[in-house]
């Protein structure tokens, strides 16, 4: 344990006590650091922290870990339940295991790396930030993704990028079925650099040139009402 890292054993404490501890450490300055042991797959750990804090969690976490945070850096040595890093404003979350459904829902900024797999609805309604998944993502991932970047090292379940806006998806594996108005686009040099940098930051060893880009076909919200056939197909 390094100097200045405040450790807390979750066993025998309420979730409120654990989060209060984290918030109190967060006020100690820009180098604030905390470590949690025995998280025991609890829900709602490290939520609502809006001052700089570096957190290491040694074990598995439940739902909404690191949700509603701004400017924190979290590293989790285990699996996560649903809603990992939900609504992250800025900062980073690194998950060494796999995440459940709705991981990175409505993320607005910052960087999330999931080294294993993610469940259904990964990156649903993202509004910014970068999410990198080393493995597979589940059904309806990036559903209604408005902005931001989702990078998928493995495969995606059906409905990938359904109703996408300006979000960008990069996928190395196969998408079981594309979502409504999600289309493949040319990878540019800038795309390759973006993917390479994100993979490196996420600690995921994959060749950027194996990724394909998926973006919005822009037919769902830009169409001519007179072109009824397009209306029917897009919807």
């Amino acid at each position: 344990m390094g100097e200045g890292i405040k450790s807390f054993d979750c066993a025998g404490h309420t979730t409120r006590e654990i989060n209060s501890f984290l918030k109190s450490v967060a006020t100690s300055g820009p180098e604030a650091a905390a470590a949690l042991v025995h998280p025991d797959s609890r829900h709602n750990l490290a939520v609502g922290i809006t001052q700089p804090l570096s957190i290491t969690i040694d074990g598995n976490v439940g739902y909404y870990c690191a949700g509603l945070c701004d400017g924190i850096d979290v590293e989790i040595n285990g699996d996560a339940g649903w809603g990992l890093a939900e609504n992250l404003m800025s900062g980073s979350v690194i998950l060494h295991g796999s995440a459940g459904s709705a991981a990175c829902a409505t993320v607005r900024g910052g960087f999330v790396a999931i080294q294993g797999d993610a469940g259904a609805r990964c990156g649903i309604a993202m509004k910014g930030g970068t999410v990198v998944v080393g493995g597979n993502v589940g059904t309806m991932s990036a559903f209604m993704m408005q902005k931001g970047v989702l990078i998928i090292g493995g495969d995606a379940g059906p409905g990938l990028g359904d109703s996408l806006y300006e979000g960008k998806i990069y996928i190395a594996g196969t998408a079981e079925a594309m979502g409504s108005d999600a289309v493949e686009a040319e990878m540019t040099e800038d795309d390759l650099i973006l993917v390479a940098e994100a993979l490196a930051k996420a600690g995921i060893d994959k060749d950027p040139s194996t990724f394909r880009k998926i973006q919005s076909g822009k037919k769902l919200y830009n169409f001519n009402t007179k072109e009824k056939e397009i209306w029917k197909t897009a919807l």
Partner: protein
Amino acid sequence: MCGIAGVINLNGSDPSYPVGASLMTLAACLQHRGTDSAGIAVFGPHPGKAGMQSLEVIIPERLPEPRIVYDLGQGMLSDLDIVPEGFKAAVKLGDGDPVKEIIALVSRIETGLPGSVVTSYGEFMSVRKVVGEAVGLSDAVSDWTGTHGIAHLRLATESKIDPAHAQPFWGRPYPDIAVTHNGHITNYYKMRKRFEARGFTLASHNDSEIIGLYLGEKMAEGYTLKESLEAARTDLDGSFSFIVATAKGLGVTRDPIATKPLLYCEKDGLVVLASEQQGLRHLMGETVTVKEIKPLEVRVWEKE
């Protein structure tokens, strides 16, 4: 919201796995998902009773005199025994259609003993359901052993709170089938009407109850458990993650939108399922590999 759990010991034919205690561990970890009711169904051979069917009844009033129960049984019941909040009895079928006989027997009991509900019927199955939290089950079920079982924590959404409306539901009238369900079957009333028109009855107005009846009927028609679940995932409308337990094992499926969770792990011949991961790790270790049943996936684990 509801929490569901299941466990099966696939190692040999050992009937002494602590199914009850394992399910109680899972239930404690899932308790926050529903505090309205809790229930457990455990499957295992009953010593000295191979090949014999028995049924279990919950009765909120004083227990009736045995003579009254035997009269209602019309010769089908014997070996009456007291269980918490009710009784159990051995069942002997006549020569008629077993489905019709069981439907009629259950009807006679539930009409003849107002407020009672038959919660279990089969050779291997035992069911205990209570209003309130899972701790209310522990005295009864903590030392139940067997081969497999399922559990339920209820957060009531559309029907009333009493033991009859709690899960797991016996798939009446079929023997040795019970279901624990998280979700909402939206074509319940349509299905219920069709089943009732053909003479089937249900214990409650809880939509979850239709699942066991649907699966039981499919298997009575010759479908395997796997085929029954493949049919169920298309025929059932609404949200569902459920575990069905039969004499031989467990089966699961999830609806395609998959908003109701179902995780599992397999290790050393044990398969454990639950809505959330904490209980899996309490039973099988912090580092066990936990996977999620995929939307529309059908999995079956059966003993030989």
